[in-house]
């Protein structure tokens, strides 16, 4: 009987915890309408970058193809000519295909790239109905003409993490840099 009484007290405690948690705001981010901010180093879909004058950064050196552990990258290089200066160097990539179904998003390609031409960006909404639609070509990979970004290259640069703990808004490389995990900060006494 005394065990039962102890159990009953425990039951009451449990009920109060669930009731208090019911009054909390849900942590769910309702996805299609609201999207969460990813850390800047998130490795999503690949992007090929350009210089400010519109030329491609990729010089067709095949280093990323060589380093790719999954064999997801296929490049056909071609010579630049004086009337067709596609990239900054001697050669450019005529064909640049990435098989998103093979890619393991390890980021070795962006580490290997000598010109910071390829980076993995925050686009994680990668889905398709056919295998062909997930084999993406140079036109889909290149950033649009007139834009010139470095992408996550800056995020990978060593930068001293800020010491003051604050809300994680995606500007830092990871939520650990502001002194917390990936979950948004909550008020005290929320049940854990």
């Amino acid at each position, binding site marked *: *009987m*005394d065990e039962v009484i102890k159990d009953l007290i425990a039951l009451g405690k449990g009920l109060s915890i669930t*009731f208090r948690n019911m009054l909390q705001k849900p*942590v769910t981010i309702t996805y299609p309408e609201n999207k969460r901010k990813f850390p800047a180093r998130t490795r999503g879909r690949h992007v090929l970058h350009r210089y400010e004058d519109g030329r491609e950064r990729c010089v067709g050196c095949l280093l990323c193809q060589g380093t790719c552990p999954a064999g997801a990258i296929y490049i056909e290089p071609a010579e630049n000519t004086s009337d067709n200066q596609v990239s900054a160097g001697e050669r450019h990539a005529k064909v640049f295909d990435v098989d998103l179904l093979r890619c393991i998003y390890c980021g070795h390609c962006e580490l290997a790239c000598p010109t910071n031409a390829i980076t993995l960006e925050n686009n994680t909404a990668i889905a398709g109905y056919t295998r062909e639609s997930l084999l993406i070509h140079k036109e889909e990979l290149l950033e649009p003409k007139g834009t010139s970004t470095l992408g996550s290259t800056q995020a990978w640069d060593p930068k001293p993490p800020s010491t003051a703990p604050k809300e994680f808004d995606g500007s830092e490389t990871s939520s650990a840099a502001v002194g917390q995990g990936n979950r948004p900060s909550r008020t005290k006494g929320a049940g854990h």
Partner: protein
Amino acid sequence: MTLEALGFFVAVVIKAVLFSVALLTGFAYMTYGERRIVARMQWRVGPNKVGPWGLLQPAADGIKLLFKEQLQPKEAKTFLFVLAPMISLVVALSAYAVIPIDKDPVNIFGFNIEPWVANPSIAMLYLLGISSLGVYGIILGGWASNNKYALLGAIRSSAQLISYELALGTALVSPLLMVGSLSLRDVVAQQLDHSYLNGDGGWLILAQPVAFFLYWTAAVAEVNRAPFDLPEAEQELGAGYHTEYSGMKFAMFFMAEYVNMFTVSSVATTVFLGGPGGLPVDETQGLVYRLLAHGPHWFLLKVYFFMFVFIWLRATFPRFRFDQLMRIGWQFLLPLGLINLGVTAVGVAMQWKSYQFTIAVMSMLVTLVSLSLLNRKPQHH
């Protein structure tokens, strides 16, 4: 057949249909409410996509279940396999026939409308009998499926039902002794027409708190809800007795479970919380006072409170082990219920007032607790 008898018959049929429709709609929205509330308790949002705030989710679920393939195992006993969910649902719905949702017949447009389908003098016996029949649906379904897990779930269910039916009965007999009638209409009238301090009226939860606690625990076990949902323990048995059911046949088991929840909530409301009774005001002073005093809205409010408690319990407690289940039923609920029944019987014989019952029952509880504390075995750490 005389015209009056025909009118009575038509009225009963209409009310029965209305009650059934209300219960099935209630079932549909309880599934929605349960998912939303449990979600909030777990910091989630729950279904919110179909319709505004997800309010059409039950309709979407219903359409899905209607159009799903009706699978049946090759070795299943077809007749019983089809019959079992029907038994469950019909029994669950018919239990509601004797629940009064208001105190007295209402006069609307010259028609005298009784707010219950039937008012037999043995309403409580009918309820207990009918609710025990519900296990036939479960055990036949589990057996006819020709599936080990389904059979195990069904056997667990029958063992559980036998163990908790006793505690449920003893818990209900104590307040009924005080009322002196098995008719639920008398139970309601007794609670509403007499005052707590001067007579034997007042909500019976005040005079019988222990019986209420026992009833509620046994009722949760009786309808196979968490933490007593061993018959359908997903982690151990697949889905228990309805493992092999799909489509509308599964939906009928599902409906039966929720309608049973409504029934035991309504019995708890009627017997312990004054049924349709509201605030203690003089109902003769006009419509507003009449609505404040008693009405179906009060009844619904209390029933939905109990439904919330069901959901709350489910979100909080892990499932009991089978030996724990049996220990609670036979070693805790039943003895306590019998002692409580004895105290109540003495009180009824000595014509105690309501508050004296409260004092007696609570002092009984205190005595038992202190006895058990004195008898505590030495704890080794």
